[in-house]
């Protein structure tokens, strides 16, 4: 009798599990991998909207991981050819790994009647070897965050070039308690990790008349065989740019850059320790949170200063998160439906209004509902109109190896281990000798 009861319960349990499994299968499900943080939270809102809209028919399961782990999962999927995820979130740093392994969306876009021109300059960032392989869903630019109240109290204007920016930062740096040490910094330069070091180099130096990149801008085309360092790296313009950058931490306008990254920057602004700083526009969310930030409601935003350091025109770098479908996805049709929804006006507006997502559709930026919610929006709109940095092929553009080489040399420079001239020379030589992308293969 006892054995019979055990057998009966086991059979019932199996039936229940089968029915659950069966009913789950009725809803078509895909999985989506994205990074944690503001981007994950914002796109999570879009996923929520999609699931609500298509409840009972389609479902997207979202997995969020830190950037490095996300990238590793993506690479593992390609190496092992296991279709764990159907959609990947991709940013400029992870393009080189992903783009060669993504599905060409051209036929789907044509069939769906989606016009890529509505994304403006972001189309280039979603293209690989002439094919559209991703759709942009989240944009951000580096903007200046500044304490409006402190600038007004000091009678200072918002700086529009790096020279006045430094002057304003000097005047706003304060020793509050009279102990001879700066308590409030005028600026906050970050060089702790390679992404930030490279961004600092671009904003202070490369974008200001040197072509916007450390690599030779004349190297172009679908397949790069011999990426070469930019000859501008050995110019007086570049060396002077490094020295200008150095003046910020040498004079105490910025704290030790080797110890800072964007997390410390956010804390510092939230705690009222920094007067100005440049950061990704998506961080506005954290700075304007009144529960965590003493600076909430007191901030102003403007585009990055410019200056004509070198003879080339000023250029800007705008990065965006895009969604792509790996080649080995088992449900490309639903995956495309999802990513095209995420890039649609409906989802872009929803994410921007509710999750402070930087929209990729320009017409969303013109929506009057936004201005009240996001004070950085006019700045973002202005930044979109600036000329883009020269487009490098994906194989070499912003790869981690390029960033790492620049980062190592910049850190040695910031630590006083080598001069600006040595930094420029070493950066050039290492980019010339050490890049192991297409040439090695």
């Amino acid at each position, binding site marked *: 009798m006892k054995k019979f009861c055990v057998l009966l319960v086991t059979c019932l349990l199996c039936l229940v599990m089968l029915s659950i499994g069966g009913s789950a299968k009725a809803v078509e499900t895909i999985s989506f991998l994205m990074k944690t943080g503001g981007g994950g939270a914002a796109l999570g809102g879009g996923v929520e909207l999609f699931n609500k809209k298509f409840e009972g028919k389609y479902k997207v399961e979202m997995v969020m991981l830190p950037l490095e782990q996300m990238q590793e999962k993506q690479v593992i999927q390609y190496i092992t050819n296991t279709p764990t995820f159907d959609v990947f979130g991709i940013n400029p740093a992870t393009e080189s790994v992903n783009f060669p392994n993504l599905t060409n969306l051209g036929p789907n876009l044509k069939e769906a009647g989606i016009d890529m021109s509505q994304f403006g300059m972001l189309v280039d960032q979603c293209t690989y070897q002439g094919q559209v392989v991703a759709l942009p869903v989240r944009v951000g630019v580096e903007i200046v965050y500044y304490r409006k109240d402190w600038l007004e109290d000091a009678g200072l204007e918002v700086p529009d070039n790096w020279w006045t920016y430094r002057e304003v930062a000097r005047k706003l740096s304060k020793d509050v308690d009279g102990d001879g040490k700066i308590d409030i910094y005028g600026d906050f330069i970050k060089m*702790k990790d390679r992404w930030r070091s490279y961004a600092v180099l671009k904003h202070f130096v490369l974008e200001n008349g040197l072509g916007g990149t450390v690599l030779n801008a004349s190297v172009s085309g679908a397949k790069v065989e011999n990426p070469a360092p930019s000859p501008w790296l050995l110019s007086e313009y570049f060396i002077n740019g490094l020295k200008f950058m150095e003046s910020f931490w040498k004079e105490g306008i910025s704290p030790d850059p080797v*110890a800072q*990254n964007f997390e410390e920057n956010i804390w510092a602004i939230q705690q009222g320790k920094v007067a100005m700083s440049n950061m990704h526009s998506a961080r506005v969310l954290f700075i304007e949170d009144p529960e965590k930030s003493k600076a909430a409601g007191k901030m102003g935003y403007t585009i990055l200063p410019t200056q004509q350091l070198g003879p080339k025109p000023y250029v800007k770098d705008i990065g965006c998160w895009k969604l792509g479908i790996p080649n080995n996805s088992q449900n490309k049709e639903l995956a495309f439906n999802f990513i095209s929804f995420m890039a649609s006006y409906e989802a872009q507006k929803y994410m921007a209004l509710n999750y402070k997502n930087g929209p990729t559709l320009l017409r969303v930026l013109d929506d009057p509902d936004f201005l009240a919610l996001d004070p950085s929006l006019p700045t973002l709109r202005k930044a979109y109109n600036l000329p883009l940095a020269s487009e490098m092929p994906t194989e070499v553009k912003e790869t981690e190896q390029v960033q790492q080489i620049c*980062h190592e040399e910049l850190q040695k420079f910031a*630590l006083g*281990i080598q001069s600006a001239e040595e930094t420029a020379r070493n950066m050039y030589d290492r980019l010339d000798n050490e890049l192991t992308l297409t040439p090695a293969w």
Partner: protein
Amino acid sequence: MLKRERIIRRFYPYILLLPTFALIGVVLTYPWIWTLVLSLYRYSPLYPDRTQFIGLQNYLKVLSDSRFIDSLGKTGFVVAGSVGVEMLVGLGLALLLNMNLKGRRIFRLLILLPYMLTPAAVGLMWRVMLHNEWGLANYFLGMIHLPKLRWISDPHLTLPIVILMESWIFTPFVTIVLLAGLQSIPIEQTEAARMDGATRPQMFRFITVPWLGPLLLLVFVFQLMHSLRIFATVYALFRSPGPANAGMVLGIYLYETFRMTWDIGLTSSISYLLLLITALSSVYFIIRLYKRIT
């Protein structure tokens, strides 16, 4: 029949162990062999069509890389420092906790707390504490009128900080193991020694240390093997190989090489070299331990 029974009895234990060995084989042996095979190839997931057998070239490339040699030196420094501190402080704490002190039960519990935290959480915690501008460490230094240190950005402080963090996490493990060993020392031996007029240092030298010998060797081997593969604490603290690559220990070197090149073959060869280094540095102690136990 008897012969059949004898055969069954002889092979029966192996049949029972077969599932375990099969699992170990799949989980452990297969990755080992596959990694070894990959280390003989030039292979990247970015360019799978360009995979090429290159023999030992990956190993030669790594061994001739100045960064690898540099990371070996840094790892050696961290191993010597962290294992040394863990053993000395761990033994000291174990001796203290073995004494009849008031509140020792609470101390025994509290001392385990660092060991319960994940290395990544510890790294983040220390990152906040050691922040150059607003961290607790410099705050307390300022209170006693000492100059502030550039904890996170001074390359000369990087490895000492790593040693400190690792010791903070793993000393409790050493303490608890040695405490268990101390408590297993027969009380008659210490009493007899005391009655014979032995001093505390003599009792420590001639009774405690010999009794603890196998355990000391055991924790030493564990900590040695662990320290050679440090990664999480360094990366959580610096999110990079540290200022001017000052924290580029072997684990970080392996990770960074993979991230920079996406060359699975090269990275596999580094992991095998790390395995070899770990095995070579601990085999002597393992043999000694085995001899002591048997």
